[in-house]
């Protein structure tokens, strides 16, 4: 994994304030940026606004002020169905597939954004990448297991060959074994060159695969740094992430 620090950011927010209620912003002035090819994990305690931040970037939460830039273009007010055409793919935490549609239909819907001649090729490429899905395209998505659903949701997001892939807690509700499979997949996707933003509660696993970590507390960026260093920093871990270190307890 190479952190491409010198590039200009592919995705960034500037002084972003957002929330469902006008007088109750959940994201309260976030400056956040991701370099091309980077793998950033968003961490923070419950209610810190991680999920709201990525939903806002995806166009699902009203923006009160500030801007969201994608590849230098202002996409703040762009409706979510336009954002995917500009290369921003988002995988929501829950209900991230159409359960009543088949696997193939789920991918067809995503491919509809592409020019006609490329659609079947892309779906074919994803079936090759996710053989579990390719083996049963006419299966109802609702019948898939939790891990398979996540894979379908990720595959769906990759159909358009996005410049940025944002995942909102893909590990939620999955067993530890499945989580590590899902994380391996995500790491592989990032290795293949897709800029990745991951929201996670699963701190250790996330820090293990990410390049960089950003910690949100109460709607603001509280700390950021290289993922591997953060994992070893007991104070940061304990203060912001609730990770308990049994060895070498910090004395007061």
């Amino acid at each position, binding site marked *: 994994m190479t952190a491409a620090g010198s590039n200009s950011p592919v995705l960034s927010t500037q002084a972003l304030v957002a929330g469902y209620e006008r007088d109750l912003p959940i994201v309260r002035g976030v400056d956040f940026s991701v370099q091309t090819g980077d793998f950033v994990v968003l961490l923070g305690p419950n209610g810190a606004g991680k999920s709201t931040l990525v939903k806002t970037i*995806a*166009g*699902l939460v009203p923006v009160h002020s500030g801007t969201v830039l994608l590849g230098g273009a202002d996409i703040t007010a762009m*409706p*979510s*169905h336009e954002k*995917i*055409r500009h290369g921003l793919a*988002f995988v*929501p935490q829950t*209900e*991230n*597939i*159409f*359960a*009543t*549609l088949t696997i193939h*239909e789920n991918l*067809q*819907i*995503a491919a*509809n*954004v592409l020019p006609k001649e490329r659609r079947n090729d892309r779906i074919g490429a994803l079936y090759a990448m996710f053989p579990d899905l390719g083996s049963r395209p006419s299966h109802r998505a609702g019948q898939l297991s939790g891990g398979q659903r996540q894979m379908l949701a990720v595959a*769906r997001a990759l159909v*358009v060959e996005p410049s940025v892939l944002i995942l909102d807690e893909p590990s939620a509700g999955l067993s530890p074994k499945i989580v590590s499979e899902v994380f391996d997949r995500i790491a592989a996707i990032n290795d293949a060159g897709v800029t990745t933003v991951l929201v996670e509660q699963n701190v250790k696993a996330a820090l293990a695969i990410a390049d960089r970590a950003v910690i949100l507390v109460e709607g603001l960026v509280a700390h950021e740094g290289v993922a591997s260093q953060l994992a070893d920093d007991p104070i940061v871990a304990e203060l912001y992430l609730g990770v308990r270190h049994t060895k070498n307890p910090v004395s007061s």
Partner: protein
Amino acid sequence: MNPQALMDGLITGSMIGLGAIGVTLTYSILRFANFAHGEFVAWGAYLALVVSGALGYLSGSLLTPIGPFSFGWSLPMAAVIAAALTAGLALLVDAVLFGPLRERRSAVIILVMASFGAALTLRNLLEFIFTSQPAYYTKALQIAFPLGGGLRATPDQLLTLGVAAVLVASVHILLTRTAIGRSMRAVSENQQLSGVVGIDVRKVIRMVWMLGAGLACIAGVMAGLLVQIRPQMGLDLLLPLFAAAILGGIGSVPGAMLAGLIVGLAEALAVQLIGAEWRSAIAFVILVMILLLRPQGLFGRPE
């Protein structure tokens, strides 16, 4: 059931079914029961009356009955134009009323209430323009010919059944086999995710209004052709439409059509057994029974 009641039931049922498809589609995608849907039926019937009158005025030959039917080419042409106009009316109502309420994330029940106000406005506007006197597309009388087995039907009635069958099949194929149909099903399942995967939800909503209103218009033209055209026809159909949409399972097109036929046949049976004056109570009885026994309907998903 006497064979004639069967024929009557099928015909009423196919009109109810066509209307119920619109109700079920708008319900599953916009997520509210649209009390104004019956008015699209009535407006469709009147718009076709006006257009076919105008076409007949422009060229008298359009009024010459086609083959065995009671009407000339002016009526089918008018029906197509009226379907487009009714679709336009639905888009207009959505643009001035439901759209702004959606933007504001109004409660479902506010939308229902707004549709109730829209229904009254639209219905009474018809009554103001056309008075409450019934109108007809054609004065020609048709003789029912025997079909065997004691069944009799006029050519108009058979045509109506055929058109209804073709329309239902087309809508079913549209929903299951085409990209726009996939988008509609996606939006009806999860609107937020639909936006995320790149579906223009507003465009889908417009399509659904146009489709629902167009079908309602055709149902209205059929009712006008076989019975009569009145400003109240939409109000009278409303309860059977809701009963059919719920019985079929919200969101299910084949369900809505089948349930429409069931409601139509039940009405015809009731007319035979207990008298025509109780016809409109049947839809209510069916509604109560579904809500008691199987609120998700025949083909619906339990909530």
